[in-house]
């Protein structure tokens, strides 16, 4: 187990190093190999999670260790997919190290044994978790794209930093790609919340119980809804959209971890350590 996790981290680490070299050296070959290495890491990662699933018999997201493991998996998977679709190679400089960091965190957090309850076996719950994690990964990438946008915009505006100007793609492209990530993430977030409500209805007999997690989820959802609405109606593009993507992701992170650590509510086991 530990050694497999170690291999995964090593592969992601290699991929990150490759992307950082790519940032400086700008040779196609570097990002191509980084992408392949990350794919290899992702393959091993998938095997690990699949193995866990079969070993314990329910979806492995019951403690912080497993949650981080799955968060890293979603981020890597969504990045591999979206990068293939949108060809934003340089985003690897953000995605690969972030994935590596999540995996190292997972490595450091001890795996607390949780006694499974039948509640965890519901298909709705599995759907809920998978979809929400994909949404979160997309939003993480949207945030990364937003950061790249702000860096590039700063370089163009101040006319001083030629390093990034040369290496990052055009503002329009970053803006459009970030938007695509948010649309993907928002769709998934919406479906994920619906599956969550359905699950709550099945388990507790009510859709909504004014739980902190629920409230914050809806707040996050509203932030992204506002962002999309602003873009379509008032033309919130470029800088403002980039900043909103970063704020949205911060809110999302708080909903994901902050609520569990600072406030109380259901979803507790999810970050147990």
């Amino acid at each position: 187990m530990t050694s497999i996790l170690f291999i995964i981290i090593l592969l992601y680490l290699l991929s990150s190093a490759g992307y950082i070299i790519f940032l400086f050296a700008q040779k196609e070959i570097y990002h191509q190999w980084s992408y392949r290495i990350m794919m290899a890491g992702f393959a091993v990662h998938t095997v690990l999670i699949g193995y866990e699933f079969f070993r314990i018999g329910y979806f492995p997201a019951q403690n912080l260790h497993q949650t981080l493991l799955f968060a890293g998996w979603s981020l890597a998977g969504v990045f591999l997919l979206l990068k293939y679709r949108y060809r934003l190679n340089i985003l690897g400089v953000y995605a690969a190290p972030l994935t590596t960091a999540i995996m190292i965190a997972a490595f450091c957090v001890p795996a607390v044994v949780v006694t499974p309850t039948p509640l965890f076996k519901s298909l709705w719950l599995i759907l809920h978790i998978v979809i929400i994690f994909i949404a979160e990964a997309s939003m993480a990438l949207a945030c990364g794209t937003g950061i790249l946008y702000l860096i590039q915009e700063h370089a163009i505006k101040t006319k001083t930093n030629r390093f990034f100007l040369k290496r990052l793609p055009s503002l329009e492209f970053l803006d459009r790609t970030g938007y695509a990530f948010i649309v993907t993430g928002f769709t998934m977030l919406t479906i994920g919340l619906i599956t969550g409500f359905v699950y709550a209805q099945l388990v507790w007999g009510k859709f909504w119980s004014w739980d902190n997690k629920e409230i914050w989820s809806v707040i996050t959802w509203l932030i992204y809804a506002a962002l999309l609405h602003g873009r379509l109606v008032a033309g919130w593009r470029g800088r403002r959209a980039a900043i909103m993507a970063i704020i949205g992701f911060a809110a999302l992170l708080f909903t994901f971890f902050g609520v569990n650590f600072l406030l109380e509510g259901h979803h507790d086991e999810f970050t147990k350590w």
Partner: protein
Amino acid sequence: MMNSQNGNEDPSGTPKTGPVMSDIVLIGVNHKTAPVELREKLALSDEEADNAMKSLQKMPYVNEAMIISTCNRVEVIMVTKNQTLAVKALSSFISKTKNIPPKELQTSIYILSGTRSITHVFRVASSLDSMMIGEPQILGQVKEAFKTAVTKKNTGLILNRLMHKAFSVAKRVRSETGIGGHAVSISYAAVELAKKIFDSLDGKTVLLVGAGEMAELAVEHLIRNTASGNLLVANRTFSVGVELANRYNGNAIRLEEIPEKLKTVDIIISSTGSPDYVITRNHVKPAMRSRKNRPLFFIDIAVPRDIDPAINRISNAYVYDIDDLQGVINENIETRNAESIKAERIVEESVIKFTEWYESLDVIPTIIDLREKLHLLMNMELSKTLQTLPHLSENDQVAFQRMSESLIKKILHDPTLFLKNPGSHRNRSVYLDFTRKLFNLDK
């Protein structure tokens, strides 16, 4: 042998006597040695180039020749047995057909031979000798010139090899150095920047404010990148604007229409002689709202400036003035110079390799190589044979040796004579190359 003693002012090479090998000689003028007036006069039309080729073909001491004629250079590359005569004949041919006094020609012309001519050809093809180092057109022009010479059957073994090497050097320089990748003119810099703001320039609308020559220069390159885009020209004198717009399939507008047009255009190039700002923050602010914050790129090449620099502080609006663009250009020139050191090294390497091959075409080394090869074979076979005949006395062995030696001499006698003088109208290099291939001397 290789001959590189020639300088700019000394067209008279040492007269060559006896069977010396022919030399690669390059005669020409370029943007560094001749003013544009002279280059204009010298530039050859296709027909004139054709005639020049023909007269070169008639010269008995010129074996191969080609002519490169672009707006920045006119160069003739020849393989000749008699450099002095060839240069003289060519110079007089030029001054006659182009009506330029030989004196005037003398001061701007350069004559290179040997390694220097090879280096020059490689540098030209790699765009290291261009006015704008790294510009991509020159390679195509050289290729075209070579193709013409080939179809006219004016090239042979040496020029073919030289030019093919030149093309591969140019390719290496392009792929291994960053020499072609940096914008070094205002319009290139503007396009480079525009491409960092807009994903693609295709379909973008360009607004030209002021219809001066400077603006036209800047817009030309930009227009080439905005394939299906649109051009608007706003000028104080409307008719001048209309004329310029027509030339690029655009439309002319009045200066008063600019604030309204800011809602739809994407790139603005301004170059009026106005002492005040033509476009201010107050024009742009409301336009941004109705264009839903789609980016707006201002290129201000006017001095004094036309575009209020405060516009740069508005979100999604970007202003570059002439100094900012100059900054981009300067930095690119620096990178380019650094890269050209790498490029020169590649050229140098290739010149050495080519020279090795070229020198091998000389008579003496070829005959020596041939003799050495035969000696090697003989010694091998002799020692093998002598081993099987241990009963032979020392004297017998020496006799064997002597016989083999004289056999080699006899065998080499006729080929040596032929290679030293294959006949006055024959190109010796071809026979030398053939000999080297036949006996596999370059292994």
